[in-house]
């Protein structure tokens, strides 16, 4: 069985596809979006998170590994020597250490995802997300095949920046794709994510050819990708897609600072406020003029 590294499993996920879902977050992403709110999903390697506020300076981790030193009533974590083996996490009783990137095989993952199957009635199911799940596409295909055998609705949340081959592996078992669309202009895309969007758009077009429905998810970051001209370009691209079910706007929240700190990654989160309902509605209206179905979560169902 194929194994994968994951960093989270979220139950009662209601924004990762229809109904009540369980979402498995796989580790590793080809993009490095500056606004990423799951920075622990970017690196494919395991990472140890350290939350100093929770540390009680008990010294148990120090006994386990030389990466940790308790000196002068302070916990010094030598990240540079950390192998992310996770032994220190096991002995930490205060929740100050957390390992992101544990392994699990497709059978174990299927068992976990099936635990909540009673809640999947009425259109719910499971979603593979990340990071970029299709970076571990063989695992995904094997896992989704197991879940399809059980009649579970399966969704894959992807940024699209993977070889088409990765898509091909999961196509037979995927009921719905959640496809990120961050910005239409490739140069700007590279500025914000570290990568142009040529392959992403090509894969999107090929995905549309398969007939499998997909939802577009657009993160909305004020002063970054909410420019009208850019959005018009996006609207043109998206309006040509036949199997697009909806465009969902995702308002930006700068709430992941502590995660960046915990894993020792440079915090790149834009210092801009979250867009309000009106700002999001303006974007929605712009897209709707192109006959797109748009979901504004700030006005939907309140």
């Amino acid at each position, binding site marked *: 069985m194929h194994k994968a590294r994951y960093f989270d499993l979220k*139950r*009662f996920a209601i924004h990762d596809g229809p109904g009540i879902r369980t979402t498995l977050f796989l580790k590793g992403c080809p993009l490095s979006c500056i606004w990423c709110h799951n920075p622990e999903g970017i690196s494919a390697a395991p990472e140890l998170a350290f939350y100093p506020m929770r540390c009680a300076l008990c010294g*148990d981790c120090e006994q386990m590994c030389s990466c940790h030193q308790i000196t002068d009533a302070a916990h010094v974590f030598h990240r540079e020597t950390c192998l992310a083996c996770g032994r220190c996490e096991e002995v930490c009783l205060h929740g100050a250490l957390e390992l992101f990137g544990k392994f699990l095989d497709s059978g174990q993952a299927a068992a976990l995802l099936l635990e909540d199957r009673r809640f999947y*009635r009425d259109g719910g199911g499971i979603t593979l997300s990340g990071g970029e799940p299709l970076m571990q596409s063989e695992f995904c295909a094997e896992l989704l095949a197991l879940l399809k055998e059980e009649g579970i609705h399966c969704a894959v949340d992807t940024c699209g920046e993977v070889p088409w081959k990765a898509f091909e592996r999961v196509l037979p078992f995927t009921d719905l794709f959640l496809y990120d669309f961050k910005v239409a202009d490739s140069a700007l895309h590279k500025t914000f994510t570290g990568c142009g969007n040529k392959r992403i758009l090509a894969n999107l077009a090929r995905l549309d050819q398969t007939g499998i429905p997909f939802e577009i998810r657009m993160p909305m970051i004020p002063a970054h990708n909410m420019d009208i001209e850019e959005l018009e370009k996006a609207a043109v691209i998206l309006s040509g897609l036949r199997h697009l079910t909806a465009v969902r706007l995702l308002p930006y929240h700068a*709430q992941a600072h502590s995660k960046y700190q915990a894993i020792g990654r440079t915090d790149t989160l834009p210092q801009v406020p979250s867009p309000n309902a009106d700002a999001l509605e303006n974007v929605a209206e712009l897209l709707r003029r192109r006959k797109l179905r748009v979901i504004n979560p700030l006005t*939907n169902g309140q």
Partner: protein
Amino acid sequence: MLTKTFTQDLEYLRKKFQAPVFEKGSGLDYETLKKRVLDSISDMEGLPHPVIKAKAFELIARNVQIEVSSHDWFPSFGCWNRKDRPMAGLLRKFSEKTAALLTKNGLWENLNTSGSSAIWVDFDHSVPDWDMILKFGFPGLRENARSWRCRHEAGGAMTPEQAAYFDGIDITYAAILELLDRFHAYALQHSAGKPRLIAVAAALKALHDGPPQTFYQVLLTIYLFFMFSEHIDYLQVRSLGNLDNLLLPWFEQELEKQSASEAEMRERLDYFLMQWGAIDNYWGHPFYLGGTDEQGCSRINRLSFIILEEFEKLQITSPKIQLKIARNTPDEFLDAALKMIRRSNSSLVFVGEESIARAMTSLGMTEADARTCDIRGCYEFAARGRHNENDTGCAYLNMLKPLELVFNNGIDPKTKLHIGPKTGLPEELQSFDDFYRAYILQLSHIIEADISVCNEFECFLNQLNPANVFSAAVQNSLLTAKDAFHDGCFYNNTTLLNAGFASTVDALCAVREMVYLKKEVTLAGFKEILDANWSNHEKFRLKILKDCPHYGNGNPVADHYAGMLGRFLSTKINGRPNSRGGLWKASIHSARQFIELGKKTGATPDGRFAGEEMSKNSSPVMGMDRSGVTALIRSAAVLDAGDFPADLPLDVMLHPTAVEGEEGLTAWRRLIREYLLKGLAIHFNVFTAETLREAQKNPDKYAGLQIRVCGWNVHFVKMAPEEQEMYIRRAENLAP
């Protein structure tokens, strides 16, 4: 928006019960009134208790201070304070007299002192037949009782007890009519041409003369019946009925005849609901909305929505609303309720009609009983109508205490009282099976003790508190000429409430894991740690919290023991005969006892410190449900409503993002419907820890923010700081 008139009257309404002022001459001052009641007892020595109490009722009704204010649609009288009711002195005398006949007073005291249980005579959960009350009205109830008396007399077998029963009702209802007259006269004297007082006077006259005829008169009848029973007759009416369906015929009739507009009836509802908001009993007074009819059609109607809307405008914590959910309850109605909760009003409980049916039929009641039942407490329910049920909840069992007794070979460590059997010294319990068996023996012993104590004193309920007001509103009581509070209802049941369920499951798992599987400590060593209240063993405690199975996470080990314990309680308690011709019912509902009994319980193996609160209801230990709400509901599903015919509530805390948007509502509905396949009642707190902290810092800005505590709501800003912290800690566990 509340009407301008109501807003102007709010100040009066808020003070009406908390700081009432009565006109001199409207009656005796309160201390004199109480003294008169006590003095009158000596004149009545030898009379039957129903008659003595009825005469005391009469004395109070004739002399209590009254007011009918132009700021209100509902009259007031001077004996609203339930901590100091005029009948209390008389009931104390009755109690002293009865106590002399009891043989188990010592056991009763030991159980209460050791915190093994909390046992008292329950005067707080009566449910009258509202349909009968509205059909007859106050004079009709008296006439109906008289006609039943005639039938019994014609049968030729009237005993002195039965005669006293009917005398008690007759005197009491005559006094009620006199009090209505007093209210009416007062309103007229003070009307000075004010249209509202004239209208109130007319309604009071109408109720004196017959059954209610208008929407407002129905509200007035419900209010007055509650007040007469609870505040004079000392028996709490613990249900305002199924208000949406109870009121609907009058609501529609008024609209059709154009005798009252919807706006006017909404305003009357506001005043009506505000009465209980102003009384402000912490436990709240419940009513049902919804359910299904005989054909299985949903009974959600226009009034169900109107009541929800008006209730939310008031921002009060009592009354509290229980939504009876069936498969065909419209999503639209559920959404209206869920949106209310999202707006920080947690006063709503979702109860499953099918689960109620499974619970009630498990004890031989009918499906019709389940369909028409009334709420009778925080979550509990009781059959109404012809099959009226009186169910007393007189014993709360502390499920953690038997654990302490296992560690201490039957002796309560704090009081040194010998409570349980000798189940062996810790070193003699060689396996977890030994330990579990010892626990079950101790638990079983307390259950038996509770039942024997309650069965003894419940033989005297009709002597302790003859229920004259209540009995006239129960058909079976009149038919049998038996006190409805004692054995006059069709079903006369008693509930044993079990507190600390999840704490016990977690504690058993901790012992199994740490002592018998991992062998990190011996049972004797564990006892020493608990005796020292974890002092110098904080790491061990944290390890238990981190590594041992905890109920509420879908953990198979914890859920296995939860299921075992649930089945044991159910088998042991349900269907046992009580002493009033009824049955015992099991409940996993803790009310305030998860706090009170916790204070009397030492440190326990689940990581709990001595004196701390225990888990409440069927909910996990606060903060230990770390795997999300679906895992919590999977755990809760090991308990079935059919095994807990009294009640089985679950408290859930959700992060607002978990239920935002249209998707959130859809998922939330799904969650509720899934839970109600097995469970009985579920309610929600939807907050972030940040919101709660903000409310702590700025109470003025968050005056309306409500927290569901157990079976009742409180305004968060009025909670003690340490209680606020507990909710904040739990909210911190919720992932956005």
